[in-house]
């Protein structure tokens, strides 16, 4: 499959190399900021699988991010499993949840689909609060010091070290990026786009579009869970704030700005927006106004986002 779209493949490799070099160039703080950006970009990339490639706008991805956070965090907190195992538990939780929610939500379309995902996500958020004895509720749980380092294949990783954190985030980001390259640029990716462009036609070419959408939904939710699990373990804290509505909106915003249906769009969107908010918080308290205004501006004038615009104009392979 990699014979397809070689240019994009090279760009992905260049991006990863660039991100690796970045840690030697940036100030300490920006390295920390980029650690966060990489994790959130993974989240947005997961969201993009569904929204960008398959054309399904979900308002409930916070629940999959949250499933990753809690699946990983709770298994580390209560069962004391090692971090790699907790990480996998988080991903598994997100995959199972997204599969089940997908089964139901995909029976609906467009507006109903948005509301259904929103409502399931709200219910998940409320459940976290309701079982606060176990989940820590809004106050959350702080992971013990023993959960701040791990060794894998003889490699000792200290989660409190900035260098280790950055490179760990970059590794996960890289794996997801290349995995998604194979997924979206190959025949399956073509099917996702086929569903987005014309679901009826795709069905009449003999595809079970429900199954395709369910696959996209589960992959999307699973990757969101990867980001959530990494975020929870990396920062050693889990809390209901990670399953809030705002988290879903951030994924939507990052994807919209960067360019839905482009592989690298979510990274661009996440990077730009995170840095923008970071700078804004020194200038104005109302960073949510900026989110609001951007949501409107992007839908009005920029519906294909930054990379989407580049793609439509000059670089058709950027997808």
């Amino acid at each position: 499959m990699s014979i397809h779209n070689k240019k994009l493949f090279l760009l992905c490799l260049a991006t990863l190399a660039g991100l690796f070099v970045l840690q030697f160039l940036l100030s300490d703080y920006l390295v920390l900021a980029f650690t966060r950006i990489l994790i959130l970009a993974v989240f947005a990339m997961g969201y993009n699988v569904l929204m960008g490639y398959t054309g399904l706008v979900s308002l409930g991805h916070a629940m999959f991010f949250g499933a990753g956070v809690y699946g990983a965090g709770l298994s580390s907190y209560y069962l004391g499993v090692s971090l790699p195992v907790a990480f996998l538990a988080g991903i598994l939780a997100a995959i199972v949840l997204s599969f089940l929610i997908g089964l139901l939500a995909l029976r609906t379309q467009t507006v109903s689909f948005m509301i259904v995902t929103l409502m399931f996500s709200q219910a998940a958020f409320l459940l976290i609060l309701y079982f606060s004895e176990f989940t820590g509720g809004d106050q959350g749980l702080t992971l013990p010091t023993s959960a701040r380092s791990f060794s894998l294949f003889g490699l000792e990783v200290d989660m409190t070290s900035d260098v280790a954190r950055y490179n760990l985030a970059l590794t996960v980001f890289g794996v997801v990026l290349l995995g998604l390259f194979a997924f979206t640029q190959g025949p399956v990716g073509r099917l996702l786009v086929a569903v987005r462009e014309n679901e009826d036609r795709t069905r009449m070419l003999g595809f079970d579009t429900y199954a395709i959408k369910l696959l996209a939904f589960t992959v999307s939710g699973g990757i969101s869970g990867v980001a959530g699990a990494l975020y929870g373990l990396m920062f050693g804290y889990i809390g209901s704030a990670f399953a809030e509505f705002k988290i879903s909106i951030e994924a939507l915003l990052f994807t919209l700005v960067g360019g839905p249906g482009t592989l690298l769009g979510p990274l661009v969107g996440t990077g730009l927006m995170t840095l923008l908010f970071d700078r804004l918080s020194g200038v104005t308290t109302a960073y949510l106004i900026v989110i609001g205004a951007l949501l409107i501006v992007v839908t009005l004038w920029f519906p294909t986002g930054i990379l989407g615009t580049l793609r439509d104009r000059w670089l058709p392979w950027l997808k």
Partner: protein
Amino acid sequence: MDIVPYLLLATLEGLVQASVLMLTALGLSLVFGVMRVVNVSHGEFFMLGAVAAWVCANLIPGPPYVPFIAALLIAPVFVGALAWAADWAILKRINYNPEATIVSTIGLMYIIQQMTLITFGPDAQAVDAPFYYTVRFPWFGYSGYKFFIIAVAFVLVGGLLYLLRHSKVGLFMRATQFDKETAQNFGIPVTKVYSGVFAVGAMLAAIGGVLVVPSQQAHYLMGHDPLLLSFVVVIVGGLGSIPGTIAAAILIGMSDGLLSVFFSPTLAKIFSTLLVALVLVFRPQGLFGKAGR
């Protein structure tokens, strides 16, 4: 406490909730019914109504009923104008695309919320009721103003229904709802109907906000719960169906009151959000609607 006063209280509270809900949810339902879009910033129009009532109470002198009545007139006009402007500036330009509308009204929601935070401040503010009167039952007392809320809401909803059924404007709206293209061919100014409906929907929410604020408080985040409950009502009642919305408002308002009395309110909320999701999945026409079309 015995079960009788318990139920009486739950019923009264349910009725009050149902009344306010009826107004806000009708706004949302009207917009969805005619325009086929979901307005996520609807709860903020409700909040703006409440804040407008507080502003009136602070600026207009006289006994409490004077600013209250002023607010009942001013708040809907102000909020309606704002909604009309939003329709002109945003919704019209994205051609009422359902998904783009949701995204951009989420944006609008944040903007209104934060602008209110900046101007109105983070504190909850109380507004005097137009009159104070406590109805004393043998077991407990109950605010007379809340009976007033019920009365006003029912009068307004009745008036609205009458208008929809018997006026030219109502006819235009129903025609547009039924089939946009045909309506256009019959010379109905569809774009004007859209702007009007969006404004009227917001005005209904604003009136709900004004009515509620003397019994509660104005706060910049207060739009969230009414939005959620209105969603529940509109969806359970069947998207776009006015009688369904009214029936669902009463059902949800009453049962929310009862559920929260007997169960944890968080559990009640979980229940209602899941209800919305499952109704949409398994009975998209709503609990009261008929299948088909």
